[in-house]
């Protein structure tokens, strides 16, 4: 007789997959142009944008990695999430209207298009496309691996299929993602994102309340953690168990670095008009904050339960959330949270599939062969399929390389693109040369430092605990500012009649 809780779990996950597949089928019939495919037909309004941006921003890390990190590092782990107080306003109030207006001045489907439009240079677009492609492959590889593991675990395939359980999970998960990614592109993706975002919000609030209540409430949690030798008072201190350099590095990368995340910037190209921008900082910020209740709740409740002797210590930190859910939560709640985790993975994977496909068939050919013909819907669909298959193969054949790219894809995209987008759209003096140099610097330095870290050969000039992405981001920002400062002013070029920035006339 199967365990009723496991049945609940599997039924909820199955229902979720059926709904998402139905959205994919529905949206496929409504995707008729490349603009529908890459920009959801420029139809999203406030709530759709807020939910889709939130769902895309959070990957499986929110439900699995985040609680695991907090279990291992204590309060210091939250420095990854704390910049969310600033980033919705940074995106919507600081950059959003610029992104929207630049996107309206030409055929801007991608960040590469945006930078080419801003700087009037194919080289900038090409460099950005390489960064997006590398970051996307890394993100996709890890998301696809995580999806396979999660589905195999939820449906209990290990006992039946043995070593083929994870590949079967990957195949099923990928088939559902492809149904709405290849068929509906961003149109299907955004609609699925809204459903997935809503699911994530409900799951986050429910699991937070249940976890805190199970562990005895905030007072009991703090007391048991402070008294346990395995955790101690340091666990609850602001920096937890991380060095100061790590805390500030995370704050920088996950704060300023948000300006380099194509999966989020892309949502602003889709906006129907600018009206939602004034509401977005609050709506997006509150939605993201509700989702953060997952790592916050599980991150302190699980170690407290371990300290109280009511839950066995997980073998590895990333198992903290699943261990709690399977041991203590009712089946319906477990099903909801696991469905939320699958939703978070799928929404991120869909965005990166379409973005990587666009980089392949649109951005790179435009940069290196100078092709300016319009991207067709069929090309977008074939490229998305190709990227999905390539990332899956890559994930199985070269998992070490995928882990290198995937674990740090946020940092890679931040280091490469945040200065060119975040500062380049605000500071007129930034030119094509500075932006290109900054992108290649961020990309190269980040990959070199990550590889050096894996091989235990981090240069001595890097302070201990400083994340490689933070060092790369600081360097790429410095390069952008220095090259801009010593280059000819863009305004001076325009006054000589050299119209190369494509920037709308400013009123000063």
């Amino acid at each position, binding site marked *: 007789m199967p365990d009723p809780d496991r049945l609940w779990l599997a039924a909820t996950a199955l229902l979720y997959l059926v709904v998402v597949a139905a959205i994919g089928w529905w949206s496929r019939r409504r995707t008729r142009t490349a603009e529908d495919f890459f920009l959801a037909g420029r139809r999203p309004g406030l709530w759709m944008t807020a939910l889709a941006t939130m769902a895309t921003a959070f990957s499986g890390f929110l439900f699995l990695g985040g609680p695991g990190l907090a279990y291992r590092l204590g309060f210091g782990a939250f420095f990854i999430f704390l910049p969310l107080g*600033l980033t919705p306003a940074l995106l919507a109030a600081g950059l959003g209207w610029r992104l929207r207006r630049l996107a309206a001045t030409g055929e801007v489907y991608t960040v590469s298009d945006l930078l080419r439009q801003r700087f009037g240079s194919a080289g900038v677009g090409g460099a950005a496309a390489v960064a997006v492609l590398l970051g996307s492959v890394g993100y996709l590889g890890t998301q696809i691996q995580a999806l396979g593991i999660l589905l195999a675990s939820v449906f209990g395939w290990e006992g039946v299929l043995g070593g083929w359980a994870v590949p079967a999970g990957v195949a099923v998960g990928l088939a559902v993602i492809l149904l709405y990614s290849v068929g509906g592109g961003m149109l299907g993706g955004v609609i699925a994102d809204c459903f997935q975002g809503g699911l994530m919000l409900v799951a986050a609030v429910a699991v937070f309340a249940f976890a805190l209540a199970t562990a005895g409430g905030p007072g009991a949690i703090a007391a048991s953690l402070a008294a346990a030798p395995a955790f101690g008072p340091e666990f609850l*201190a602001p920096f937890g168990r991380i060095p100061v350099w790590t805390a500030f*590095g995370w704050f920088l990368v996950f*704060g*300023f670095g948000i300006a380099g995340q194509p999966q989020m910037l892309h949502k602003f190209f889709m906006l129907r008009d*600018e009206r939602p921008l004034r509401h977005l900082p609050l709506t997006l910020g509150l939605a993201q904050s509700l989702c953060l209740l997952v790592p916050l709740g599980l991150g302190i409740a699980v170690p407290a339960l371990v300290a109280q002797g009511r839950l066995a210590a997980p073998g590895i930190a990333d198992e903290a959330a699943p261990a709690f859910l399977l041991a203590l939560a009712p089946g319906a709640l477990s099903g909801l949270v696991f469905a939320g985790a699958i939703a978070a993975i799928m929404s991120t994977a869909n965005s990166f599939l379409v973005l990587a496909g666009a980089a392949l068939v649109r951005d790179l050919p435009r940069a290196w062969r100078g092709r300016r013909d319009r991207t067709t819907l069929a090309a977008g669909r074939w490229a998305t399929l190709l990227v999905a298959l390539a990332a899956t193969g890559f994930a199985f054949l070269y998992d070490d390389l995928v882990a290198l790219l995937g674990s740090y894809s946020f940092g890679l995209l931040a280091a490469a693109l945040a200065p060119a987008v975040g500062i380049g759209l605000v500071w007129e003096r930034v030119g094509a040369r500075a932006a290109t140099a900054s992108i290649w610097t961020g990309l190269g330095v980040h990959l070199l430092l990550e590889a050096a870290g894996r091989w235990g050969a981090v240069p001595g000039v890097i302070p201990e605990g400083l994340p490689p992405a933070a060092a790369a981001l600081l360097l790429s920002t410095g390069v952008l500012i220095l090259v801009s400062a010593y280059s000819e002013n863009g305004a001076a070029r325009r006054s000589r009649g050299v119209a190369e920035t494509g920037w709308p006339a400013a009123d000063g």
Partner: protein
Amino acid sequence: MIGTLSSSRPSDSRASRLGLLLVAGALCAAFAGILLRTGAGPVLFAAGAVGLPLGLLAAGIPARSPRRWWLSWALAALAAGSAAAGIAAPGESGRQLVGGWPLGSLLALAGLWLLPLLLLGVGALALSPSEPEAERDAARDGGKEPDAGP
């Protein structure tokens, strides 16, 4: 200069400046509180971590006058300076308990996450231009309707 790229949204108001000042103040208080106990010395990096996002945000919100531009960066410098001072100053205040929780951690959560979120969110809602103003700005800045695609 950054200000010359800005469009004409009415954010150069007293309320706008007050909002940014409140955000900067909240960040300063939170950083000062949580960092008092560390006694570490990465002062410049703290300035970058806090100052860069806040400065970009402040500078990114459009302004009509150069005075607003300087004010934005002054606020960013204030936040960064306070964080740096907090890092450099050793102390025990971060260990004090409030309702069973360490004061420093509560300040970190409130000052770095919730307060800026609410202040900036409500500020953007209250200070952004009305819809006709936004449409007028967009038209004047050269925006045009997106093409219909292939």
